[in-house]
């Protein structure tokens, strides 16, 4: 560490959905490195300290180095000429960039989708069906005397969810922290998160829905057959005890992860959990919250919702937004070979999508915006290097509880932000099309 350092106080970590905003970052001005990240968890420390400005080309077109401007032109040509383009990703960039991305999708009549469709999309669908009783993380910290974590392993995925916001955090009405709370973990296996739990409930894999539904019945005083244990691995006595605790607490919280949303039952699981939390409000105050992964996936949900009315998986080809998960979600659009061009922003579907979807990405022109070289950027026709949000780019991100925060970037970057690239791309695309693309009028008339 050189002598030339400065400290950025209260910076925000965008590594996970906790979006902790109490990072004190020490920046080495000579090496352009963050050398210390006070208050960061193990994941956040790695996020900040391992970040270096890579010696990457500004852009690659067909693998050849190009300027950002040339790449924007190539990307705009692809998007303006595509008949069924899809724009995907967005959960690791700012709201300002997300707003530009949705604007491009609207201008070209494409599909806009975010990583929500492969994480808590089912929770978004369940929300549309039953609603949700929820709260900010600060309410949980100050009030929760019963915390139930379901289908997730925050100790490893969101370490400070326990320490800053819930389990061990001290709050206004729970001044002794963990001593004032009962902590329950429900999962299919005993993860490291079980260490903080007063009660660990092990559910047989793919049986969460049955457990949740049985709890709903017990909360309402209905009969549940003891054979529930055979089915789910959880005894009736355990469930009765849990139901009684839920009704007896003063401020109960259910925090749930992808162990619910991406296993058998999907949105039925999320729906059962949200309904359980709502039901409990007849007896006490009870809230639920999906634990979100990416740093600004919650911002993506919000932006896509306020601009289109729907949270993810939105198609604009008819001239207005249509929402249909399964039809307009990226895995499905790609796996069926429908899209004829794709723009991937701050996500790496080529590393984690099903094989048929990746194979289709190889067949069509792909535009990738990412600070790093990824599987997706390597298969892209146009790969644009952008600066990393939260480290080199300011803007807005939403914590998993919808609380918006302004980033305090610590390091300069030679690369442009996603927002500036997308804004220029939008302007060029609209220039090429001559305003927004108008769908064939007969189809609009039919819809109206």
């Amino acid at each position, binding site marked *: 560490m050189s002598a030339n350092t400065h400290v950025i106080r209260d910076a925000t970590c965008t590594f996970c959905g906790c979006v902790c*905003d109490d990072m004190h970052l020490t920046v080495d001005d000579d090496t352009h490195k963050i050398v210390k990240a006070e208050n960061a968890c193990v994941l956040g420390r790695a996020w900040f300290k391992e970040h270096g400005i890579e010696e990457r080309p500004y852009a690659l077109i067909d693998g050849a180095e190009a300027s950002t401007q040339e790449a924007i032109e190539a990307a705009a040509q692809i998007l303006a000429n595509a008949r069924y383009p899809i724009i995907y990703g967005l959960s690791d960039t700012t709201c300002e960039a997300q707003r530009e991305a949705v604007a491009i999708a609207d201008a070209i009549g494409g599909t806009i989708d975010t990583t929500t469709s492969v994480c808590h999309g089912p929770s978004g669908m369940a929300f549309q069906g039953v609603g949700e009783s929820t709260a900010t993380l*600060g309410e949980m910290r100050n*009030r929760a005397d019963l915390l139930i974590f379901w289908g997730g392993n925050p100790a490893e995925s969101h370490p400070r969810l326990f320490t800053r916001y819930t389990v061990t955090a001290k709050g206004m009405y729970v001044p002794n922290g963990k001593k004032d709370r009962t902590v329950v973990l429900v999962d299919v296996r005993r993860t490291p998160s079980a260490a903080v739990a007063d009660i660990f409930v092990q559910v047989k894999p793919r049986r969460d829905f049955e457990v949740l539904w049985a709890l709903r019945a017990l909360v309402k005083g209905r009969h549940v057959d003891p054979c529930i244990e055979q089915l789910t691995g959880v005894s009736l006595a355990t469930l009765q005890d849990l139901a009684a605790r839920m009704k007896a607490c003063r401020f109960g919280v259910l925090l749930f992860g992808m162990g619910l949303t991406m296993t058998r039952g999907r949105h039925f699981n999320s729906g059962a959990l949200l309904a359980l939390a*709502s039901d409990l409000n007849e007896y*006490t105050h009870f809230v639920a919250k999906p634990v979100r992964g990416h740093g600004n996936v919650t911002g993506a949900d919000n932006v896509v919702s306020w601009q*289109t*009315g729907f949270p993810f998986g939105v198609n*604009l080809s008819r001239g207005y937004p249509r*929402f249909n998960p399964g039809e307009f979600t990226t895995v499905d659009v790609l796996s069926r070979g429908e899209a004829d061009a794709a723009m991937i922003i701050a996500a790496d579907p080529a590393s984690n999508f099903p094989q048929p979807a990746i194979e289709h990405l190889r067949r069509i022109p792909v535009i990738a915006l990412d600070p790093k070289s990824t599987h997706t950027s390597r298969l892209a026709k146009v790969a644009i290097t952008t600066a990393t949000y939260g480290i080199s780019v300011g803007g807005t991100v939403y914590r998993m509880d919808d609380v918006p925060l*302004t980033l305090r970037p610590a390091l300069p970057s030679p690369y442009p932000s996603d927002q500036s690239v997308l804004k220029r791309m939008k302007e060029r695309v609209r220039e090429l099309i001559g305003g927004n693309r108008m769908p064939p009028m007969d189809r609009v008339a039919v819809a109206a």
Partner: protein
Amino acid sequence: MLRIVNGRVYDPANGIDGEVRDVCIADGRIVADVAAQARRIDVQGMVVMPGGLDIHCHIAGPKVNLARKLQPEDHRVDVQPRTAITRSGVGGTVPSTFTTGYRYALLGYTTAMEAAVPPINARHTLEELHDTPIIDKGFYVLMGNNVVLYKMLEKGHREEFRNTVAWLLAASKAYAAKLVNPGGDEAWKGRRNANVTRLDEKIESFELTPRQVIGALIEAVDGLGLPHPAHIHCNNLGHSGNFETTLETMRIADGHRAHITHVQFHSYGHVAGKSNDDPTSRAREIAQYVNTHPNISADVGQVMFGQATAMTADAPLAYMLSRFAGGKWVNADTEHESGCGIVPFAYQDRIYTHALQWAIGLELFLMSEDPWRMVLSTDHPNGGSFMSYPKLIRLLMDREFRKEEMAKVNPRALRQTVLADLDREYTLREIAIVTRAGPARLLGLTNKGHLGVGADADITIYEDREDKEQMFSAPRYVIKDGQLVIEDHEIRTEHEGRVLHVAPDYDPGIVEVIRPFFESYYSIRFDNYAVDDSYLGKHELVATAQQRAAGA
């Protein structure tokens, strides 16, 4: 430059009542005259009014976006296709942001105020307002359940209290201070979904009563010289017998200015001695109080039959409604600042309570003696969408139409009211007051709601029609900041409106008084709380009385 000629001008703030005269525009303002070569628009036979102002609606921010996400079925049936220059979107009772801006403009409205935002969510609201085109906009920041303020009030630190009110307004870039069911949140969150029901009841966990909170906020806001007084959603909304709480709340003002919002929802009596809890109308008492107390103003919060979305910081109320509606329900607690509830809801003319609410709203309009202080709202989308304003205007202007509509509603409810005896018909002048001049004056927006020299050139031009619903549904021209945004009923140009906000002066020392509470009990850092100017976009800082005096 524009010269609008031959129109019948309704500009009540300047005493102009249907005179045919020219209106001239240059540089976004009304001017006395423009050069001969200025574009002329001949609006012979048409009605010229200032652009409409919505003093109370819910169009942007966290609860609005939750309500949007909640109702795909509402959007599916009401789409807004893009054009070469406008963005696509969806409608329903909670439209997407772009559609909200376009549809307000297409109704001839040029300003709308979002009525309830927790300060911690101000950034979100400003981001949405930025994506709400054409209209000017601002928001009211929630203070009636703010724990920091409670702590100061509890200790009797009135000076700190007043400074913190000012700081919260400035830090969130809000336009006004809002109270919602003061004192209710602590009971809701902390005592198993309880509520407060009396103004002198102790607030959960505090040595305070709702009366003290209301009084202190009215006084602080008035003392700061804010352009708009404390904007109050009274306790006991929707409950039979609540008119007494409403009267009592107005009395607390004790000569200070106060605005009672969606007062229709707060004008209910109950049948003495009856075990059934059906509400009755107490519109007369409420209207009389407002009529005789010039320090008090109100917006009606009319209920319109059809689809609505209840969305409110009054979480216990939303929970009660969800028990009636039986469908989906959203609750969202915001630390130290607010509660929130959302319930899709439909008002039906055959249902006693809904018909009564509809009739009470009309009674309030028709018994109001000062249209400047009893202005039009549906508490969009709580009582119905802003898209129903043209129908509401017809109900006020057209006695025969009103009678036809009355014939369709629950007769037992109507008998509880005097609506059948009210023959009054609003004039165009009075409509111009309750939809423009009045809200502008109550908001302290001296450049809006009128067409005098120097005013913002926000102008709406309607074709005069017998059917007032038709007339007010689709203005022929809308001019915003001097730009002809709507011509021949269509949006012709992109336009970005301004964010209206205040920044009252406060003792900078207050920041260090507030900080320790944040560090102990908030989940975000104090230094990340205040919203910076980058969120304002195009904006207009509206001065307080003190700031105006100092500047003059």
